[in-house]
């Protein structure tokens, strides 16, 4: 802890019971199973309305991803140029884009590829990054050196450039990969070069936490190194990781848009928000018919919002001091 110079009024200070570290430390140390901290988190999560709001929003997104036909019967690839840039109208509430696609159907069906890319990439990146970062920060020494330098090799090459080069290299060895192949290729390219971001954040957080008193306390009470890492260190290192991951989720979905814009992301036949946002770019200059940009971008923003709020709620739940 920081060394405070004695402040006036110090002698009047009596720490309220809630501020004392002891109960938490005792709570975690011996008899309870390691999940106890997670259980507590869940308890506090249940009573947070933001959690429920974001969870319902997220559930909605996931239902759209899994069952798009529940929401629209229009084929998202059916196009009629005579409808080009048609305004919203009954039966086609989001109007039509330049190709004459129904924007509502595109937005609904586009969720699958976009959300899967964002979610899967974030998941891989977070798991790999959290583990490598936590181990590097916790053990230090040569373990840290190897992990950190390996992370540097991948992270030193800027994500967008790396994804461009990586995806076109993938084109070479894996052509004609279809819908799921196309989606996986984008996930692979983004994840391979994206994990060190989380590694760095997690490592920094762990290095900070491992010196805190309650960790020392747990250690002195006989918790093993690994158990200590998983029960105390990682949960407490999570907040910056969660925040970065929730923002990254949006960034990855948009990265797909940029890659598609440059012609190396998803094949044009795959319906995705990114493909549609890229196709809407020309509308920006005239400022007309911006509905073709608004709906896919809005759907993307809503998805990111639900993850951000969820991340916020989870972070709160994991913070023992912030628990109500």
């Amino acid at each position, binding site marked *: *802890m*920081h060394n*405070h110079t004695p*402040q*006036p*009024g110090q002698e009047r*200070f009596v*720490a309220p019971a809630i*501020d004392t*570290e002891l109960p938490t430390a005792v709570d975690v140390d011996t008899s309870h199973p390691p999940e106890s901290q997670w259980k507590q988190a869940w308890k506090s999560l249940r009573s947070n309305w933001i959690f429920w709001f974001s969870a319902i929003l997220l559930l909605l997104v996931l239902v759209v991803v899994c069952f798009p036909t529940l929401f629209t019967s229009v084929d998202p690839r059916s196009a009629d140029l005579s409808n080009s840039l048609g305004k919203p109208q009954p039966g086609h509430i989001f109007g039509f884009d330049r190709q004459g696609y129904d924007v509502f159907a595109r937005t609904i069906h586009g969720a699958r590829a976009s959300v899967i890319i964002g979610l899967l990439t974030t998941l891989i990146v977070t798991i790999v990054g959290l583990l490598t970062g936590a181990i590097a920060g916790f053990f230090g020494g040569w373990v840290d050196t190897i992990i950190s*330098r*390996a992370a*540097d*090799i991948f*992270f*030193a*090459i*800027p*994500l*967008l*450039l*790396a994804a*461009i*080069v990586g995806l*076109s*290299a993938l084109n*070479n*060895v894996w052509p004609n990969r279809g819908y799921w192949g196309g989606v996986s290729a984008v996930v692979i390219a983004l994840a391979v070069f994206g994990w*060190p971001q989380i590694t*760095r*954040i997690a490592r*920094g*957080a762990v290095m*900070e936490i491992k*010196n805190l008193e309650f960790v020392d306390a747990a250690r002195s009470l006989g918790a093993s190194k690994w158990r200590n890492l998983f029960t105390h260190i990682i949960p407490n290192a999570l907040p*910056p990781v*969660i925040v*970065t991951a929730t*923002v990254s989720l*949006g*960034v990855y979905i*948009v990265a797909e848009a*940029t890659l598609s814009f440059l012609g190396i992301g998803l094949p044009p036949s795959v319906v995705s928000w990114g493909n549609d*946002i*890229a196709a*809407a*770019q020309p509308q*920006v*200059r005239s400022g007309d018919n911006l509905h073709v*940009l608004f709906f896919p*971008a809005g759907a*993307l*923003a809503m998805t*990111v*919002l639900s993850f*951000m709020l969820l991340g916020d709620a989870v*972070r709160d739940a994991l*913070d023992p*001091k*912030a628990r109500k």
Partner: protein
Amino acid sequence: MWRYIVRRLLQTIPVILGATLLIYALVFLQPGDPIVALFGEKPVSEAARAQLEAQYNLDKPFIVQWLLFLKGALVGDFGTSYSGQPVSDLIARSLPVTFQLAFMAMIIEAILGVVAGFYAGLRRGHIFDSTMLVVSLVVIAIPIFVLGFALQLIFGVQLQWVPPTVGSATTFTNLLLPAVVLGLVSFAYVLRLTRTSVIENLTADHVRTARAHGVPDGVVNRRHVLRNSLIPVVTFLGADLGALMAGAVVTEGIFNINGIGNLAYQAILRGENPTVVSVVTIMVLIYVVASLLVDLLYAALDPRIRYA
């Protein structure tokens, strides 16, 4: 401390070797024949092809190409582009402006992000916090090639507050709008990270203790909350410099800035391996130095972290 720095600098050697090998392998795996690209729709004779392949070492196995590149790079010779210019000249021309741009973007995102995140964290759930949430959503959900383009049209063409494009006049004011655009996405990261850390630290024991000691709120917030909230932000920013330089690919195109991101992208499109690899090598170097600085900054921000 010094021993740590020296050791870290020595460790950069395998990083640079690894990263250049990785990029060389990827570039080598690129589909597309640069010679065919050079000739466009016209046919190429075997003799002419052999001549060009020998000239650019394209006829050698990839590991030999890589070693030849390293050998040259050690003495500052990065080869020549297909337009016959030394790649080192190309980099020397484009690096300063990208550096200036990325640095400005970083300052902007750091200051705005930390200040906005700090207040959003302090006033959690209030109107300012919610506004910042919406702002970061907009920034994240709309790609740069749309958002940057729109800002250019609004501020450059219609309001004429700034020149719409930069070109050769890379002055501070001309680079301001591109720097803001470039820093937007990272701004969202910094904002969210700072906000979370602030919320976290507001309930930390030493902060409570200080408050209970009667230290005024403002002082506590600045000295204890903010300072401790900066660690993840600094981590992020240090790693972000590289991302900013590559993120410049799109931004540099929009504002016609002859920077290194654009150079790399055009070279990828043309299959100019020497240029791609050289530019990436430079980016790796910058990243490595930045990440070393971050690790040293940790120690300054958090006295508990010590390097032996």
